[in-house]
């Protein structure tokens, strides 16, 4: 894609997290121009178009679904869950990277996070939106599920069943969604002020003025602001871990061989971050090219993310080996058969090996510093991981269900065209939201970038509190 920013041959050189020679002004201008500019890049329109077409697919699919019933999908009796839940878990997982970057890396004082956390958070938000669609539409009677899943006093004096992991999901996902949104908006406030003050058009001024809540950068405000931001980060961290833990409970709590495993929570969380970083890369690399942001999203960022991806990827692979080991070591005939069926003679064994290729073999190229610094290589690896993590859920859900306890009920699963339209439809929704965001809001946190400016007399103050 692009030439490396490093002197040839020298891979030891410390990498900057912001291009040289940047001032407050230059950062401000650069980042505000992305939104306030008159001329939008052609690429933006291209992506938007694709996203929009897919989104319409989603709308049609859902309408038809509501009219006909979920029988339009391939789900059947041994395989009661398939695409919808796979997609749900996949999207939720993707969301995790955002929170991780903005919260956990913040706590770890990783200042390179600043230039990616904003759109990573946006990604979280939109991924959760996509994910949240599925638990509702995958039910037989969505118009009831939409509110019966919440505990509210009613004329029947009946309540949801709090023993069910699905109810845990409802709480986890809705909390995750709203807290992410809050975190994201709080982060936006100071930049909204910047927009308010740099925009020319009076209407824009007013619009951003409203969003900025009248922020004026007062020292007192900054004081409480950073304090609150830190607390939010502190709360989001256990939250993000809990969310995918709860999602993994959907399976771990079941008795289905291939679901009923104690490794699931850590293994799912790692998987989520793995996939999340892959998605961040998938977005960051084209975006920085599209808007020429290589000074802010530097190769250092790409490389760091590649490293995180590699690390979490290995955790996930450890998860696979644990699953295999547990299955074998349990000596339980059902577990053992599940493994053989999944890896060896089952009609869907192919999916397992493709998964291994995508999630285990390909990402290993990230060991090489040279490749880590080749954007195209990282991008390719990220793409493989995106696919691989989807397949992982396919393997867990479908191949476990289609052959469980009684051989008499063993059957096959085949998705229908509606399954695919819905899946790619949500991708469309995601792209649409993401690129609308890029167009109207700062995709990189401006005020935090300012703290990185190093060519000033005073040392750049840290974002963290005291």
């Amino acid at each position: 894609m692009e030439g490396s920013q490093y002197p040839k041959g020298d891979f030891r050189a410390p990498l900057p997290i912001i291009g040289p020679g940047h001032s407050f002004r230059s950062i401000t201008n650069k980042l505000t121009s992305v939104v306030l500019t008159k001329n939008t890049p052609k690429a933006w329109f291209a992506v938007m178009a694709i996203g929009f077409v897919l989104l319409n697919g989603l709308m049609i699919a859902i309408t038809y679904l509501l009219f006909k019933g979920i029988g339009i999908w391939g789900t059947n009796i041994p395989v009661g869950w398939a695409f919808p839940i796979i997609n749900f878990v996949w999207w939720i997982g993707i969301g995790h990277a955002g929170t991780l970057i903005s919260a956990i890396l913040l706590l770890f004082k990783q200042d390179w996070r600043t230039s990616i956390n904003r759109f990573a958070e946006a990604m979280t938000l939109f991924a959760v939106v996509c994910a949240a669609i599925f638990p509702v539409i995958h039910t037989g009677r969505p118009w009831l599920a939409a509110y019966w899943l919440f505990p509210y006093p009613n004329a029947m004096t009946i309540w949801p069943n709090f023993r069910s992991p699905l109810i845990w999901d409802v709480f986890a996902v809705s909390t995750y969604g709203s807290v992410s949104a809050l975190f994201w908006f709080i982060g936006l406030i100071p930049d909204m002020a910047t927009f308010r003050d740099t925009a020319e058009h009076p209407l824009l001024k007013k619009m951003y003025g409203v969003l900025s809540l009248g922020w004026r950068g007062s020292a007192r405000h900054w004081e409480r602001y950073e304090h609150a931001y830190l607390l939010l980060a502190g709360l989001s961290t256990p939250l993000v871990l809990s969310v995918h833990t709860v999602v993994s409970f959907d399976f771990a709590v079941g008795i289905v061989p291939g679901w009923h495993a104690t490794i699931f929570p850590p293994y799912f969380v790692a998987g989520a971050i793995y996939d999340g970083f892959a998605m961040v890369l998938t977005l960051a690399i084209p975006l920085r090219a599209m808007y020429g942001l290589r000074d802010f999203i530097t190769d250092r960022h790409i490389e760091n993310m590649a490293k995180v991806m590699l690390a979490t990827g290995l955790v996930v692979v450890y998860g696979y080996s644990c699953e295999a080991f547990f299955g074998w070591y349990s000596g339980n005939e059902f577990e053992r058969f599940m493994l053989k069926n999944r890896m060896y003679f089952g009609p869907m064994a192919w999916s397992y090996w493709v998964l291994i290729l995508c999630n285990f073999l390909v990402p290993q190229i990230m060991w090489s510093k040279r490749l880590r610094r080749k954007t195209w290589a990282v991008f390719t690896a990220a793409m493989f991981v995106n696919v691989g993590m989807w397949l992982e859920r396919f393997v867990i859900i479908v191949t476990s269900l289609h052959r469980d306890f009684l051989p008499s009920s063993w059957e096959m699963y085949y998705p229908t065209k509606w399954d695919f339209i819905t899946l790619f439809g949500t991708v469309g929704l995601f792209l649409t939201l993401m690129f609308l965001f890029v167009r109207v809001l700062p995709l990189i946190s401006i005020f935090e970038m300012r703290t990185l400016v190093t060519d000033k007399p005073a040392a750049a103050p840290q974002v963290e509190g005291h």
Partner: protein
Amino acid sequence: MTLDDIRTKLNGLEGRAYWRSLEELSGTPDFQQYLHQEFPANAAEFTDPAGRRQFLKLMGASLALAGVSACTRQPPEKLVPYVTQPEEIIPGRPLFYATSMPIGGVGMPLLAENHMGRPTKLEGNPEHPASLGATDVLAQASVLNLYDPDRSRNILNLGNEATWPTLTAALQTALAPLRSAGGAGFRILTEPISSPTVIDQMETLMTASPQVKWHQWDPVYGTVQGGAPDAQAIYHLDKADVVVSLDADFLGFGPTAIRNTKDFSSRRRMGTPTDALNRLYVVEPSLTLTGANADHRLTIKARDVYGFATALASALGVAGVPAAPAVSDDAGRWIPVLVDDLRAHHGRAVVVAGDHQPAAVHALARAINDAIGGTGTTVVYAAPVVATPRDGIASLRELVTDMNAGAVQLLLIVGTNPVFTAPADLDFLTALKKVPLRIHLGQQDDETGDECQWHVPEAHYLESWGDVRAFDGTVSLIQPLIEPLYGGHSFLEVLASINGVGGQSTQDLVKGYWTKAFNGQTKTKWTLQDREGRPFPTVDAFWRQALYDGFLASTSLLTGAVPTPAAPATPLSLTPPPAMTGLEIIFQPDPYILDGRNANNGWLQETPKPLSKVTWDAIAYVSPRTAERFGVMSFQRSGNGDLPLVEIQYRGRKAKMAIWPLPGTADDVVVVHFGYGRTRAGRVGTKVGQNLFTLRTSAAPWFDGGVELHETGEKYLIVSTQNHFAMEGRAPVRVVEAEEFAKNAKAVAELGAERPGPEVSLYKPFEYNGHKWGMAIDLNACTGCNACITACVAENNISVVGKDQVERTREMHWIRIDTYYEGDPSKPDGVYHQPVPCQQCEDAPCEVVCPVGATVHSDEGLNDMVYNRCVGTRYCSNNCPYKVRRFNFLLYSDFTTPELMAQRNPDVTIRSRGVMEKCTYCVQRINHARIDSKVQNRPIKDGEIKTACQQVCPADAIVFGDLNDPASRVVALKAQERNYGLLEETGTRPRTSYLAKVRNRNPALS
């Protein structure tokens, strides 16, 4: 158009009139439009089955469409009381009437449940020797035929509506000239008939005009190859220690199967491990249910059964047996063993010859039974109950010859559908067209009706008066439960009008005949006594009792005296069947569709065929080895999919059929099923599957050699409800050998992983102090006949989903029968059946995961499923290790066909789109029994509550009861060493448990 318009249009109309006008109404465009806008959208709402049920409860037609539109406010619902209420009716309570279903001329005794004038469910008549309370799939499903919306509704003359008077007039005018010629040229073609009243009427007719000829044709029951046996065998299998079947499916097929199963299984149910079992040897060309239940099974071609029989007979020293042709090595090993076993059980053994085998084999079997002292104890021979002519083929051939010769002026065809079912070589249609006047009386305006100038809708047996004899001779009465829905007429009615007694009602005719019989004025002399064998004081007393019982107890050949038929000629003089060569073809009726008469019955289409579990299609069974030649490697499939179509060439005729490798089928044998491929069956059955009658000939209607199979390269989608038939080293069905079990009582327990005790749970188990419902299923008794499935469908308003949904494995049956094969597929070592309803686990995995609490435990330990709370996450089904939960992926319940709605059981909610459903242990029956017991201040008696599957089961394999009642049968069964829980190692603590299968093999053969 709105609901109210429709209501006003239908208001006050009842029964026939109502259906008629709704029919007309539903034709109108705005009604169509109404349905369109109202139903698809709102059908999903639950307020909907609502409307259904009230309508059903109050038979107010207008209610059929009430409560459709879904909103927070319930739409107004109407109550339509009687004008004058019949005394016997208590609104909301069902009534039961005894009646009988004629099939193949033989009666199937029934009790019909009647809800406010609508028969909804049929049970066996517990008092009747031919039923003892059980029924079969066909009887269960026959109630749906009554409501079949595609039954013909009008008398048609050349396609135009006509009336009964015009018909009778036309008939008389046509008959007048013939009568003068003594009736020559007037032919009547019926199904086999045993009805004394009808026979009496026929005799009256034929004495009046002796030239009238009566033909009988039934491709299933009335067809024999190589002559009909001169006497009918009635078995007492409860008295037999050793049973040998010569290609006889006496447990699986035909009206005798119910009583046979009752008797047979009574010798398979064990108390203690040391109890003696009977032993069943089966010799057959292809696996049947009987074969599946055999202790020893020998696979030989159908043509070789005669050879085997002769060999066995001569080995037993029967006089005058012709020289036995050489038998296979296996057979060779069998003969001596059989001889020993039969001799060892002299007087307690029986040999059963198959209905499809020639008269010679029957004669041999009878001779053997004489030799081993079976005759008179384990089997009695009696004059057949069905009126002559019993050789349908011969009778039909004669008719065709005469028709071709132009000797037939007027042909009255009753019930049967020869245009579709007649042997191909007779070319019935061409002959038929030569008959000047053709009248067809049938429930459907079928292929034959289409070829006749007159078509008369025939009344369903639940709509008409009549009588019929059960296989054991018991005279059983047929009384109507409802006015003819579509204005049908019975054969008796037609016959009466021919005989000029049309003025009398059929009821009078039946009663009249039996009054005469009571006074001994009939040709056949009947012994009419009450159950205690005392004569009735008056004819009224007799008639009242007869109607109440539904049958005349003293006429049974099983209980009453048996008229000894002509003793067989000694020494035996046999006409050996012609030798056959080459690949063998065996014709079988489809077990449920039969000759196609049930093609429009969705329940039967969707009931999995025994052993293969195929639905919605006819298939050709071949041995797995033969199948390999056509690329079907294994009899296991990972899922539903295409199977190769082969071309069957036979006597210059061709047909295509998909082949299914059925373990236990002899190599080089192809078993084809006829009955599919109807062209005028109705919305369900038209153009479904391949028609095999095109191959069947009068020379060899059941089996023949010289057939060729050719690959076509084409594929055909066959769907089945089970695709994996091996147990994979797991033990869902636990099987032990009788010998081993007698030695080691723990043998069954040792077969499974150990059952986790209460200590494995974190929590202390719930206590069940009131009732504690449980079920035990005896796998040793179960024959896998599927009756429970159909009974469950009828009782619980289970929807039919159709072939494409079954392909996606979305069938809705609440109870299924799993079948597993053991050993080499081409020569299975064992075939096991396992009925699997909801196990009602105490620690139910499904309940924990339901987010809305739509499935929870009742205080009596039922795993309640609350449809109206369910949002359909399907999590419960995923977490159910037994996969017994069923989901309404689409709108499966029919909310638009009032005829079908009328059949529904008002005590069970009709499930709508998007909700999960499953077996409830027939909770509606439990609740009714509980309420009755409370109102009558008495405890619920053991056996008072029977689940639908239990009630129908001819093998009494299913027992339901209160686990807190130490005296209950279910407790006793669960105390047995054979008792085990399915997948109990998963800690679900199922309330349903199974009694292991015990096989009584002969050491000399194993």
